């Protein structure tokens, strides 16, 4: 026997159903009844009842991808703030091999990174890692903070919402499951994106949001669009439509972004230098230094050789006052 319907608003202590149902997230069983433990919306799937909270803190779990900020650099690890009651660590083994160089040269306090949650133990100590597509340090851009529960709505079905925003504003956007979003583009576009993200957060539970956001984007960026699309636009994205739209509007530089049809793969797109790139950069630096050094050595040696040759040719002149240093040839006082 169930007392609520899907998408009903419930508060802690509300009785949802009798025992023949399964209790999911946000619910608990007591006295043969399933009750809600959170303030949120009922989610009813087959025989499983859960409650999706309106507000909740991000609790890290294995496999999540998050955006974190370095808080502290310790002897063999970094402390990371992941916008959660629990802070994470990146062990230095994620970056270095055997020899631990100075950690702050790689990531310093204040750096913002895109990370994967490698492991969470029973007392919620969080281990973070950098291995994976797009993981690494962010350069520039802004960070927008939203509630972690709204992240799925921000991304949309198969990335529909987030890709629409990316296309229209031309910004690079990376969404972390802990509610932090990194945006980088032209400053005005960054501000527009930030405002749009906040609107999505406020109205996440309403319907027809994708359309409203699309209209708002068009309004902000290039004046209201002419109503040549159908009134009842389906919630699922038709990215191709958006592409053709932007093409029509001739937004400079945005064309590059339009060729992405593969929404799911480009979910966590990051053009930033990955850690392999960083290693390469280090290698290149060292190489360059070596080359400069060898060049200096070679020059010096060839200089000496020249001096030897000259000495041989002018042997008579240099009987007197010949020193070890090659510079004596400059005193051509014979």
């Amino acid at each position, binding site marked *: 026997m169930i007392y609520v319907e899907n998408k009903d608003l419930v508060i802690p*202590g509300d009785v949802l159903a009798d025992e023949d149902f399964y209790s999911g997230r946000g619910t608990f069983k007591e006295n043969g009844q399933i009750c809600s433990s959170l303030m949120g919306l009922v989610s009813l799937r087959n025989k499983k009842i859960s409650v999706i909270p309106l507000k909740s803190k991000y609790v890290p779990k294995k496999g999540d991808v998050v955006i974190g900020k370095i808080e502290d650099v310790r002897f063999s690890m970094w402390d990371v703030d992941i916008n959660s009651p629990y802070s994470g660590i990146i062990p230095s083994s994620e970056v270095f091999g055997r020899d631990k160089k100075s950690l702050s040269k790689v990531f310093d306090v204040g750096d913002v990174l895109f990370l994967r949650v490698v492991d969470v133990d029973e007392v919620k100590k969080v281990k973070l890692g950098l291995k994976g597509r797009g993981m690494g340090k962010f350069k520039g851009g802004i960070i927008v903070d939203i509630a972690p529960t709204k992240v799925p709505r921000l991304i949309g079905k198969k990335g529909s919402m987030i890709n629409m925003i990316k296309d229209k504003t031309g910004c690079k956007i990376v969404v972390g499951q802990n509610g932090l979003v990194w945006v980088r583009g032209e400053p005005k576009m960054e501000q527009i994106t930030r405002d749009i993200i906040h609107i999505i957060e406020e109205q996440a*539970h309403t319907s027809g949001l994708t359309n409203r956001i699309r209209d708002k984007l068009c309004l902000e960026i290039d004046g209201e669009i002419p109503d040549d699309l159908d009134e009842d636009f389906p919630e699922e994205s038709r990215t191709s439509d958006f592409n053709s739209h932007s093409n029509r509007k001739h937004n400079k530089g945005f064309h590059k972004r339009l060729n992405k049809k593969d929404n799911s793969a480009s979910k966590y797109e990051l053009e930033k230098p990955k850690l392999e790139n960083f290693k390469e950069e280090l290698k290149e630096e060292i190489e360059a230094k070596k080359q400069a050094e060898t060049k200096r050595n070679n020059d010096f040696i060839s200089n000496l050789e020249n001096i030897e040759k000259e000495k041989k040719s002018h042997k008579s002149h240099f009987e007197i006052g010949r020193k070890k240093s090659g510079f004596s040839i400059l005193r051509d006082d014979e």
Partner: protein
Amino acid sequence: MIFISEEKKLRADGRAYNELRPIKIEAGVLERADGSAYVEVGGNKILASVYGPKESYLRRFLRPDTGVIKVRYNMAPFSVDSRKRPGPDRRSNEISKITTDALLPALMLEGYPRSLIDISIEVIAAEGGTRCAGVTAAAVALADAGIPMRDIPVGCAAGKMDGDIVLDLSEVEDKTGQADVPVVILPRTGEITLLQTDGNLTDEEFEEAINLAIEGCMEVSKVQKEALKDRYLRTTEVPEEEE
């Protein structure tokens, strides 16, 4: 015209023996806090805020298997007739402790080990019955913050005034009455999580006072639930079409 009811007469402020003072509760009033609530009961004005769960900054509070709460009840210097010196005093510490004990049975914190929840109850204007109203406010703030709870604790006080057992004592009744019995319950199961007595009562009077207080609590609980549901409705105001 003097109106005398069959059994009990009206009180000084015109209420019946089992009538509550006007109550107003609003959830989510502080933007910066994770959860917040504002409660007005009669002349009481109480603001509660919840921060957490967050990393416990006090090592002695840290528990590896569950989260913990830290409650601070405070009266603002301007909340009473004669200026109250700021800072915790014995009464505030006592009330903080009993509020913790009143709220804890309702919370389910096993999912947040090593974390701390800071609860702050600030009395801006006091008019009798602040500890019950404080717990009521804190409970709404906790629900607003998304902390998992078994139920929403609610508080109300009963007492003895002029020989009669009455509900929800006002300031005057509290000061001049013979007894004060604050009660906090978990409305779904009726479990009592706070019970104090101040004054002299016979066994029957005590029982009567508790029952009356529980009735009052159930009434206040309705207002709490309304407040939480209204909070959600406020955020769903869509500018354009409803659909």
